[in-house]
């Protein structure tokens, strides 16, 4: 095994320094002083980092800051507010077609965070629940997110109704979700209610959120013990594809 490569270590130090304080911008001299390195050395590191897009300058000869490419490869994290802005048109269209309330969720620790909510389009009194947390194991949104996520959220799974799946059933359901590319819940969170959701993917194909509808089983399903109607499923999947396209996750 060769030892650590010094220039990569130094490049990492430079990036850490620039990252400290977010949009902080530093000159070559400031970085050299902070890291106790010669200016030409720092300059060489910055030029290379700039070529790959990890740092950038607003103006030629100006100060350096972290570059856009770094954020793009960094994590699968997508700002929830950004996701809402990109999804606005398609979540509206989904609500209109399905005639049901629409929610977009992202994983937040062990829960699903609602980042967007569109009212059921019947002008009835409804309350915005953007920012609310939902259990992942009893919602279509949560199942769609975890099925394609990196890991199984730890902690005990709460049973909300007699229909809430036990861990074994849930594992089996996850395989089905991965196969079909959509998820549903039937009486699993609230007796008499159902939900359908599909994953939203970014340009790397990573699942960054899920979009879905929810409502009473009488409206979503042909019968109380049958999965939601395929027509509704197709609306949900179409919306998920449209948002993914908006994020560059699918070509037209």
């Amino acid at each position, binding site marked *: 095994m060769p030892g650590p490569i010094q220039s990569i270590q130094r490049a990492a130090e430079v990036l850490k320094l620039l990252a400290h304080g977010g949009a902080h911008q530093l000159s070559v001299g400031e970085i050299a002083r902070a890291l106790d390195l010669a200016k030409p050395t720092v300059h060489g590191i910055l030029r290379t980092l700039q070529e790959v897009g990890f740092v950038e300058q607003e103006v030629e000869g100006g100060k350096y800051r972290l570059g856009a490419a770094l*954020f793009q490869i960094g994590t699968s994290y997508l700002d929830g*507010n950004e996701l*809402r802005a990109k999804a606005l048109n398609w979540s509206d269209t989904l609500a209109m077609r399905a005639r049901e309330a629409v929610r977009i969720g992202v994983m937040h620790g062990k829960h699903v965070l609602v980042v967007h909510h569109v009212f059921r389009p019947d002008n009835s009194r409804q309350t915005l629940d953007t920012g609310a947390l939902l259990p992942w194991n009893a919602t279509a949104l949560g199942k769609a997110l975890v099925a394609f996520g990196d890991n199984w959220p730890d902690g005990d799974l709460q049973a909300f109704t007699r229909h809430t799946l036990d861990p074994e059933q849930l594992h089996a359901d996850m395989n089905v979700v991965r196969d079909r590319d959509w998820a549903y819940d039937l009486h699993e969170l609230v007796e008499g209610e159902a939900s359908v959701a599909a994953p939203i993917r970014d340009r790397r194909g990573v699942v960054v959120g899920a979009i879905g509808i929810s409502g009473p089983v009488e409206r979503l399903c042909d019968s109380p013990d049958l999965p939601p109607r395929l027509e509704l499923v197709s609306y949900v999947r179409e919306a998920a594809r449209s948002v993914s396209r908006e994020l560059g996750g699918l070509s037209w």
Partner: protein
Amino acid sequence: MAYIAAIDQGTTSSRCIVFDQAGGIVSVAQREHRQIFPKPGWVEHDASEIWTNVQAVVRDALSHASLSLGDIAAFGITNQRETTVVWDKATGEPVHNAIVWQDTRTDALIRQLGDQDRFRERSGLPLATYFSGPKLRWLLDNVEGLRARAERGEVLFGTMDTWLIWNLTGRHVTDVTNASRTMLMNLETLDWDQELVDAMDVPHEMLPEIRSSSEVYGTYEGVPVASALGDQQAALFGQTCFEPGEGKCTYGTGAFLLINTGDQPVHSQNGLLTTVGYKIGDEPAAYALEGAVAVTGALVQWFRDKIGLISSAAEIETLARTVDDNGGAYFVPAFSGLFAPHWRSDARGVIAGLTGYISRGHLARAVLEASAWQTREVVDAMNADSGVDLTTLRVDGGMTANNLLMQFLSDVLDVPVVRPIVAETTCLGAAYAAGLAVGYWSGTEELKANWHKAAEWEPSMEPAARARGYRKWKKAVERTVGWMDEDDD
């Protein structure tokens, strides 16, 4: 199944959105065009680039949904208002870049034309750099030989609706809403006003014919081109504000509150504009009062592009939520003066209340709050002019995706804020007007049935906090006025 395609020729981009009969979005395509800044305060667009982009987005929107022109029942047009272009009638080539609504180069000309209210009675507008007439006059005075060519009938004037309709159909027409922003049209007769045209010293030969907002102007590739509305009027139409007293506020680059005042123009005592809301075919025109705020979304863009603390407009909410309040900072974005209700072209932006405590999170808050406080000012003016207090604010536009802003807006107005299920009301309005003209929709009742509430924010701010915030905001606004001096460029 047939669809309606709306072309939205906006300030930063051109878009085409295809709608179905329920008013649902089937397809979207968008292309940005260059913002040309030859000098501080000058903003131009290349009208040829815009026409190329419009053709491209129509093509893209159709292909995204696997549609052909045969599937389109009509095209509707909505556009950035007041932006002025003059082109050669024979070649179709613009004689100069289009002068954009934000452009302040006509400042000296405006001062020279005299009292701010000189044309208000006839045109409904205060003398300001904002409107098309002075921009046209600038072109006539500054493009060599243009006046002589205009008098010979060799060149044509238009706002962006006119430019697009001319390219699409070959006809030189404008719609009554766009014409109402030129400062050359008489609000009562809805025709060019000889006195206004003479005062602005514009050759009559170059002016387009004024038509209604909803009729077939001609065809493009066999498809009727059947509506034109200025963007804000289109949003009013898309929000189905067809009754007097109904209104909306659209949040884009700027913010525009419009209230339908029925078939009579109402003259404002409080710095609002009187404008035409829409005119469907041969029906009487519906007028509107308008409160125009120049900079709302543009401030977020500025914060992203020039300050660089965020990498997308939506991230402003994330940054703003890192703190609980503005920390005492107020940002008045009077970048090109103040529009309604102040109309001060000598104002420039300030950040007031700065202390060592203020962080970037506080600044992000102040940026968002500026949109809400500016709306509060125009709502107050609207309430004073109409004598009736607004009870609900209908909102639309891209910034309605910002929950923090929408909640704060409801807080400072102390009324519920409601977003309809199609946030793209500008395009929807153009589609509706076109669809009515070709019989795709039966009438305004059918359109009203399509309107549904998608989100609602309820006020939750303590009255004392609201009053204190508004007081500070007003003090910050006072600090912007009178900044520009005679010898400033």
